[in-house]
């Protein structure tokens, strides 16, 4: 483990560097190392391997500390509506294309909703994902109010009895109050038109995000109540350690990870694999 034969100050320095460069943040790293130091002091740990294991267990406890099921659970009847939110460029639209693929492979009927009526070519981008999956995309030709697109979409979803509805929203910074209000309205309209919708509010977080991820999660949660997280771009070199803090704070499960730009590049989140990768 990091080539060290014994627990000493240098080992702790190396661990500090490992945890911080994995984006776990200063406060959490400090807490983890203090926890480890106490165990060493109480003679509960005496070699680097067991210290490593103790750290992994502690981090795992932050991540799986949620009360809901880790898997997406389909409702008894009616469309299962997933609203996808997050800041600009994190991979919302692409993730919807991937989730659609997963459900189509599982034999479900899927519908996409082009709720980003703002950004250049956002609707076209989602339509291409719809074509790739062979699924219907509800979109408006004009720059309609996203709430009105979603309103119509809920009616269509009910009428055509789709199993899964994926609603794309425009990227927005969590600090833009008016845009966060817009998101609340989209959610309200969904719920009024189709009872229980959205059944899942999925926050997409980019694995390269630093400590700002905590602020993002906090404000999106306050605005619309996040029920699941997808961590994207884990095929890069970033470790995505920020989610350890987010999950700990919000007790929200990480549903999926994005590991590439193709339709198949989505995996169910595996906490053990994730933590192993943190320590690589």
């Amino acid at each position, binding site marked *: 483990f990091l080539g060290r034969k014994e627990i000493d100050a240098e080992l702790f320095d190396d661990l500090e560097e490992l945890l911080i460069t994995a984006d776990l943040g200063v406060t959490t790293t400090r807490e983890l190392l203090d926890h480890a130091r106490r165990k060493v002091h109480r003679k509960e740990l005496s070699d680097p391997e067991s210290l490593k294991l103790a750290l992994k267990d502690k981090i795992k406890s932050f991540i799986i500390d949620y009360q809901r099921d880790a898997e997406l659970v389909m409702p008894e009847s009616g469309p299962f509506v997933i609203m996808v939110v997050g800041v600009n460029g994190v991979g919302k639209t692409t993730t919807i294309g991937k989730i659609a693929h997963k459900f189509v492979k599982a034999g479900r009927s899927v519908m996409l909703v082009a709720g980003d009526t703002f950004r250049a070519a956002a609707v076209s*981008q989602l339509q291409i994902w719809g074509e790739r999956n062979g699924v219907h995309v509800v979109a408006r030709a004009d720059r309609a109010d996203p709430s009105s697109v979603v309103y119509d979409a809920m009616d269509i979803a009910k009428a055509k009895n789709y199993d899964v509805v994926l609603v794309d929203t425009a990227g927005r910074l969590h600090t833009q109050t008016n845009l966060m209000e817009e998101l609340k309205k989209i959610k309200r309209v969904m719920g009024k038109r189709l009872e229980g919708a959205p059944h899942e509010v999925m926050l997409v977080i980019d694995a390269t995000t630093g400590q700002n991820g905590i602020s993002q999660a906090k404000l999106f949660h306050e605005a619309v109540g996040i029920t699941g997280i997808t961590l994207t771009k884990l095929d*890069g070199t970033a470790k995505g350690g920020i989610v350890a803090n987010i999950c700990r704070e919000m007790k929200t499960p990480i549903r999926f990870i994005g590991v590439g730009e193709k339709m198949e590049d989505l995996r169910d989140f595996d906490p053990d694999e994730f933590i192993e990768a943190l320590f690589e």
Partner: protein
Amino acid sequence: NLTDRLEGVFRRLRGHGTLTEDNIQEAMREVRMALLEADVHFKVARDFVAGVTEKAIGREVAKSLSPGQQVIKIVHEELVALLGGNTEQLRLDGRQPVTIMMAGLQGSGKTTTSGKLAAMLKNKGRRPYLVPADIYRPAAIEQLQVLGDKLGVPVHPSTTDTRPVDICRQAMVAAAEKNYDTVIIDTAGRLHIDESLMSELKDIQEAVQLSEILFVADAMTGQDAVTVAEKFNHDLAITGVVLTKMEGDARGGAALSIKSVTGKPIKFVGMGEGLDALEVFHPDRTASRILG
């Protein structure tokens, strides 16, 4: 915040007219913590603090400042110097047409920034030409076309069945024919560890005379900023950096990480989604933000 924490540090140590090696140690630990909380890379923060410590030892505490404020002043000055040392504008006077290639990770803001640059250059009286060279992302070419239409800036009619390097060659021919003086090439987002896609950028660099290669990075990037910037700079010899989404609440430590590891000037910051939201980089504002 850092000022309060430093006041706390110096309250515990007594009577200071000069910053000494002893009284500065604990203060510098607080500074390092603040930098890490701001997403400055682990090694960059350590080196920066070591450098500033040397500068601070032996300095007199100004009459009007508390020791904590004096330390912040020195740290702030040093940050500004590091961030902005060689601030540079776009190189517009060299060989014409000026050719700018945008490069960076997926979703960092390259396409939007290409549009913003075109808007800025058009306002300066230049004749920009937007070149969509992203043949992979669904509707990427359309995205740049929509921006061009909005601005009244011509966009090269790229298609997804042409190799990016050929798109660029063809665009240079078109630019010469139509007398466009600034060519802005938007490339696909890619991972720095994807060797075949990094080669694609090197191919463009060899095929076209590039005046600028702008590395576009998201202001909220964490520790990974160093690894990514280092690789892009190593493979392409970037000439400048653009930090996007800076109007949010990210502390922006990635700015210091990227600047220290590449040595290349941060030329612009993206301050919004609108095509007018591009500003010249202000080192002092970013320094204050990083220090919190």
